[in-house]
């Protein structure tokens, strides 16, 4: 980060050390807690002689992860692609619908109750129906599922961000005789960006969950979800947990990429929070 770090000025070295120390201080506690939990888990399973079908020890899961590496990576790539494609489609649809609904207030008032109602349906239950609509070799049902599930948080947050500009800013733009297009570009869109990322952070985790769980209901069986099901039904509990761990990692990866994107596109927002 600091280009002058190597050039040897005492204060520069000091500040680099300081920032490293700060980073270590913020990263260390969660790592310590995580490692501690794993150790406690391992000890608990060994000391109490817990049966593997109830809870395998982390060492067994790790062993399964190591020996199934290529299978896990392949399945994670498949599920990750499904989640990503569905998420991007949901992003385009959600932002588009939010933009249209914010432009016409009556449309917003009309669509919000519908969107809330649709969101209340256990949408994952529609997967078997989607599977019948498309061929068994099609990846579309899973991706469609992801799209529908991520649509709601993205749509609602986009709409909120575009419409809930505070009155002072609106009046100010009016006093400048700014055109609606200018207000959209200079005020509504930048105002909506942090809201959009709030929605995206929810949606990014949801997309992986949806992509994994959709496979529980049949369809193409090559992702993380179907491996969890087949391993569990073959009493290979360590392997099932290995794929669960991969699903967690994939979900976290999606979430962190979203946070990184937020830092790039909404630089004023994270800075404000850290203060």
């Amino acid at each position: 980060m600091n280009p002058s770090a190597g050039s040897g000025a005492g204060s520069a070295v000091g500040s680099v050390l300081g920032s490293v120390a700060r980073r270590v201080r913020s990263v260390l506690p969660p790592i310590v807690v995580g490692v501690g939990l794993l150790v406690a888990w391992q000890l608990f399973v060994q000391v109490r002689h817990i049966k593997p079908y109830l809870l395998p020890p982390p060492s067994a899961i790790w062993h399964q992860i190591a020996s199934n590496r290529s299978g896990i990576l392949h399945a994670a790539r498949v599920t990750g692609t499904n989640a990503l494609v569905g998420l991007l489609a949901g992003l385009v649809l959600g932002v588009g619908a939010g933009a249209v609904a914010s432009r016409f207030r009556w449309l917003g008032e009309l669509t919000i109750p519908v969107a809330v109602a649709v969101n209340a349906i256990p949408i994952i239950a529609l997967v078997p129906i989607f599977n019948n609509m498309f061929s068994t070799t099609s990846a579309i049902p899973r991706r469609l599922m992801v799209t529908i599930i991520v649509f709601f948080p993205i749509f609602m947050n986009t709409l909120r961000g575009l419409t809930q500009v505070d009155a002072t800013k609106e009046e100010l733009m009016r006093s400048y005789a700014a055109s609606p297009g200018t207000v959209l570009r200079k005020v509504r869109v930048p105002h909506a960006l942090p809201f959009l990322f709030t929605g995206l952070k929810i949606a990014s985790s949801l997309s992986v969950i949806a992509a994994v769980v959709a496979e529980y209901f049949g369809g193409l069986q090559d992702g993380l979800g179907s491996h969890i099901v087949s391993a569990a039904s073959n009493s290979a509990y360590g392997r099932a947990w290995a794929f669960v761990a991969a699903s967690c990692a994939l979900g976290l990866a999606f979430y962190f990429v979203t946070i990184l994107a937020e830092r790039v596109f909404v630089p004023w927002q994270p800075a404000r929070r850290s203060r």
Partner: protein
Amino acid sequence: MSGPSGGGRVGGGGPVGGGGPAVLVAGVSKVFNPGRTGQVEAVRGVDLEIERGEFISLIGPSGCGKSTLLRLVANLTDPTSGTVIVNGKTARQARLDQAYGMAFQQSGLFEWRTVTKNIELPLELRGWDRVRRQSRAAEMLKLVKLEDFADHHPWELSGGMQQRVAIARALAFDPPLLLMDEPFGALDEMTREHMQAELNRICEATGTTAVFVTHSIPEAVFLSDRVVVLSPRPGRIVTVVEVELGARNDDTRETPEFFKKITEVREALRGSA
């Protein structure tokens, strides 16, 4: 207070140097939601003439329509009856020509813009090029004494500093008229008095005509050439108190004349209730 300096203004092409008043309000009334359940008569039959370079305060009990009167001048709302003329133009035309700057109780700064970029916003909308915008923003920052905060974001500033940026933004394109709606209402007393002195200095320096809404009597007296006292809703002008304090500084607040004017405004407010 000094009169308008005349030359050098960028006044939207209107007859700035002409002899007419800066603001002319004639027989203006405002009824919100007429004929419906939420009908509210905010302002009734207001006549007011504001000279160029004058500093006018509007004061009255809360809900008396003083903000509405300011918004009528700004053409943020239309009068139910009567006319508003700003620098010889209709209020609407004056708004379209950006013939005034405005500041509110909330600073209304844009979080995603730095202090400089916030001040540049009205200039961007007027199509000024980058070099001209930057040099004007630097000039305005000097005026409100915030040169060191040019590249900061609004949340890094205190409330008083944010209001100073908002005022700098309102004055950036050199409008002949500055409209302010309780801009210091959210500030603590010490900051507030400091800001009043700053505003006084800025208006003296620029010769800007100012209309200032407040519910603080000392604030109105300290800042104004005339204090317009409004009645409870529907707002009518009860009386106009002329304030002749000459050049103002912190000592002004302890002069007998200052206290006399405060008493005068207070009694007018009491009499109207």
